[in-house]
């Protein structure tokens, strides 16, 4: 089997099974992207993994992990106004972080071209919300492309990159979780590995101004709006805005019926048309902003009834209804009826139900799947040996009953779940120290403890830490340091030492003037619990760094080196069944037998020993196994 890395830079045409994220990378290479940047976040980290699979000396672009999404977007912008086609990609809520700069982009004359790829997450598969980023395109006047499959991801990225370069404007390229992660066979074109031209092309006199401030905003905003009109015209004829009539186009019961949709729900509609064999038309919008007015109105005029099916907010619905009103189009326009349909993904089954609620004579009602019995979900948990588990266990032991704990984003968000219940409030990356500061104001009776991971510390954590130093709020920050960006697949960060020299968090805190700092190995329960008690006794802002390398990363690296750890934990005969290891420390390697005894599941135990000091009767001991 040919390796993905070889295929991605293969000069000839090829076709193969790929994920949407992989298809995007081939499209970047073919279209001549020269600078690609990111901060890791689901569902997009595999884009970086695919780029990095190509050895650096053969990689046709410069790729960088940046400190956060805003910085990544700015690096891509700087490269683009200096003449290089650039691409920044990140998760859905990454656009919130990047937004301060992102909303300015359409007012800039981006001579190299720039595509902003976002991985929206309808269904909140791995995000703290399921925000609909189509609103951002409207707010910032940035055209939006919405591929529905890996094949469309490839072809539409080529189109978006070309349009962006030609019109010198940014394009928002909106993928969703199951477009990023969908796999299918895709046909690719040729790739010309031409040597890049790195001549700096930035010229504010010839191509600017690039300086929107006060009254100077208006000429730039005018330019953005005019370009948007040109994209609207472009969209009237683009093959990305396409009408499908898979079963012909005939009136049904005397009425001509049509559906307007975009992204994955449009494919679900097609699947339902295929199944029903009914002659309806589907207008699938690939360029979903700005909508092609004339083409949409033609579609409305050509049908007696049109149903709009879209995921999340009624964005197209509101715009199409207002277009129809202005044009006096005599077409009945239907939309989703249930509030629940404004949430989550719309696959073939939900789409069928929406069709059947609108046209019960055409799409017969189907009984929803009845589950004979429902099981409690398997809650994700920290891996065997995870330093965060040891840290949460120890922090919990040190806290007074009425303490308030503030969570942040990362693997350590899992501390929220039972039995740790550490971290009771969560907004977004980096919120914890701002929120904890507020909790501490006027609070003389309840200790406040916040958590943050090391990657997030650099990403969005620093401003609130600086703020805490200045006001010397009375709370304790626990830095959950594992040396990597673990949740998204072990990407490097400023403190990991894989990009430049590591920037140690402890040194940063010392330089900032934090008065109480203790760094302990999270496995060392005694030291950790003592440090926590001291930190909480300290009046003012205090920090405990609970450090232990990510053991999933470490174990994988050891295994690759042929140095797998053979030792396993064993429960000795003196176990008194207090279940401290099973229920309070709760490493997944412990299992309870029918007779109530505790055993170690050797399939899971990595022989780390983080549990040993938690047993009140010292019944946990290593034994070597083959």
């Amino acid at each position: 089997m040919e390796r993905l890395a070889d295929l991605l830079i293969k000069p000839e045409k090829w076709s193969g099974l790929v994920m949407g994220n992989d298809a995007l990378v081939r499209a970047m290479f073919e279209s001549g992207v020269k600078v690609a940047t990111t901060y890791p976040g689901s569902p997009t980290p595999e884009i970086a993994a695919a780029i990095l699979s190509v050895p650096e000396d053969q990689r046709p672009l410069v790729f960088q992990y940046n400190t956060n999404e805003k910085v990544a977007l700015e690096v891509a912008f700087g490269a683009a106004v200096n003449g290089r086609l650039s691409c920044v990609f990140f998760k859905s809520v990454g656009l919130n972080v990047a937004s301060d700069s992102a909303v300015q982009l359409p007012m800039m004359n981006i001579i190299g071209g720039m595509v902003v790829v976002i991985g929206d997450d309808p269904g909140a598969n791995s995000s703290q919300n399921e925000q609909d980023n189509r609103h951002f395109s409207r707010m910032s006047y940035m055209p939006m492309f919405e591929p529905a499959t890996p094949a469309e991801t490839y072809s539409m990225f080529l189109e978006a990159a070309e349009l962006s370069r030609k019109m010198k404007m940014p394009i928002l390229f909106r993928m969703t979780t199951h477009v990023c992660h969908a796999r299918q066979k895709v046909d690719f074109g040729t790739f010309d590995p031409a040597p890049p031209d790195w001549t700096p092309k930035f010229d504010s006199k010839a191509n600017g101004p690039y300086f929107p401030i006060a009254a100077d905003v208006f000429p730039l905003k005018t330019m953005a709006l005019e370009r948007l009109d040109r994209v609207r015209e472009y969209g009237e004829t683009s093959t990305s805005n396409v009408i499908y009539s898979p079963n012909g186009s005939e009136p049904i019961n005397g009425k001509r019926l049509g559906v307007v949709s975009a992204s994955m729900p449009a494919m679900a509609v097609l699947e339902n048309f295929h199944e029903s064999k009914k002659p309806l038309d589907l207008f699938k919008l690939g360029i979903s902003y700005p909508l092609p007015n004339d083409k949409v109105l033609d579609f409305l005029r050509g049908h007696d009834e049109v149903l709009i099916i879209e995921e999340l907010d009624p964005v197209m619905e509101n715009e199409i209804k207002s277009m129809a009103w202005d044009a006096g189009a005599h077409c009945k326009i239907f939309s989703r009826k249930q509030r629940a349909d404004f949430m989550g993904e719309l696959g073939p089954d939900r789409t069928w139900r929406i069709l059947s609620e609108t046209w019960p004579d055409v799409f017969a009602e189907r009984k929803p799947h009845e589950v004979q019995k429902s099981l409690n979900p398997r809650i994700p948990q920290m891996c065997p040996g995870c330093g965060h588990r040891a840290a949460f266990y120890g922090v919990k032991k040190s806290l007074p009953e009425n303490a308030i704990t503030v969570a942040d984003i990362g693997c350590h968000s899992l501390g929220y779940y039972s039995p740790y219940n550490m971290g009771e409030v969560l907004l977004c990356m980096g919120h914890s120290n701002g929120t904890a500061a507020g909790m501490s104001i006027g609070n003389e009776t309840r200790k406040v403890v916040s958590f943050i991971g090391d990657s997030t510390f650099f990403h969005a954590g620093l401003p609130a830490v600086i703020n805490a130093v200045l006001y010397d709020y009375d709370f304790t920050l626990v830095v959950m340091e594992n040396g990597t960006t673990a949740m998204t697949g072990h990407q490097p960060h400023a403190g990991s030492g894989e990009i430049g020299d590591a920037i140690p968090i402890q040194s940063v805190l010392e330089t900032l003037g934090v008065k109480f700092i203790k760094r302990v190995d999270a496995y060392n329960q005694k030291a950790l619990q003592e440090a926590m008690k001291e930190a909480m006794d300290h009046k003012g802002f205090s920090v405990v760094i609970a450090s232990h390398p990510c053991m999933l990363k470490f174990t994988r690296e050891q295994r690759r080196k042929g140095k797998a750890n053979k030792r396993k934990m064993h429960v000795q005969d003196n176990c008194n069944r207090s279940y401290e290891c099973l229920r309070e420390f709760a490493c997944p390697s412990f299992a309870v037998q029918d007779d109530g005894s505790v055993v170690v599941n050797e399939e899971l135990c990595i022989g780390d020993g983080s549990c040993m000091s938690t047993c009140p009767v010292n019944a946990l001991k290593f034994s070597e196994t083959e």
Partner: protein
Amino acid sequence: MDKMNIYLCGVGGQGIGLLSEVMIRSAMEAGYKVFGADTHGLAQRGGTVVSHLRIGDGVFTPIVPEGQADIVLALERIEGLRGLLKMLKPGGTVLYYDTAQQPIAVRTGVDAYPTGDDVQKAAEAIGTKAVPVRLEDLPDPRMQNVAVLGRFASLGLIEGMDSSIIEKVLQSVVPPKVVDANLKVFQAAYSSNDVAGKRL
């Protein structure tokens, strides 16, 4: 074929990725139009991980709708039960590797862990029989996925997706170092009608 839905499930870390890779490539080798999607991100940390595979000309989207899976392949018992209850069509086929990874709710005494009989009863309620798979002396628990694959191959459920194709694909996707060990597990699981408790 117009449409066939296959749902793969297990616990994060069990190697569902390899199973889904072999399945989707084998379906493609057998000449089918394929669409699939794997779980990435949060759930990989010890939660339920799933993978969807849909094959046939009538498939335009990657996610298997609830209650519409023709086949469920699971890598752990409670996940097998969960997959069966949530996804399997009446009369469909469910295979599960008979190992236990107790969820936190079981370890803390909130839930009971299901027995093999519990799984069988749930299967019978929708007119089918569950197929437990277990090989003793696996050289590495990370090969449980290949045991399920071998047993699946022996059932010949998908026309044209012969075991020779699956075996060839398996050979091409696992690292060269472990090809032999994986093929041995595949063949052991394949060659017996009742592999529950069979020794390698």
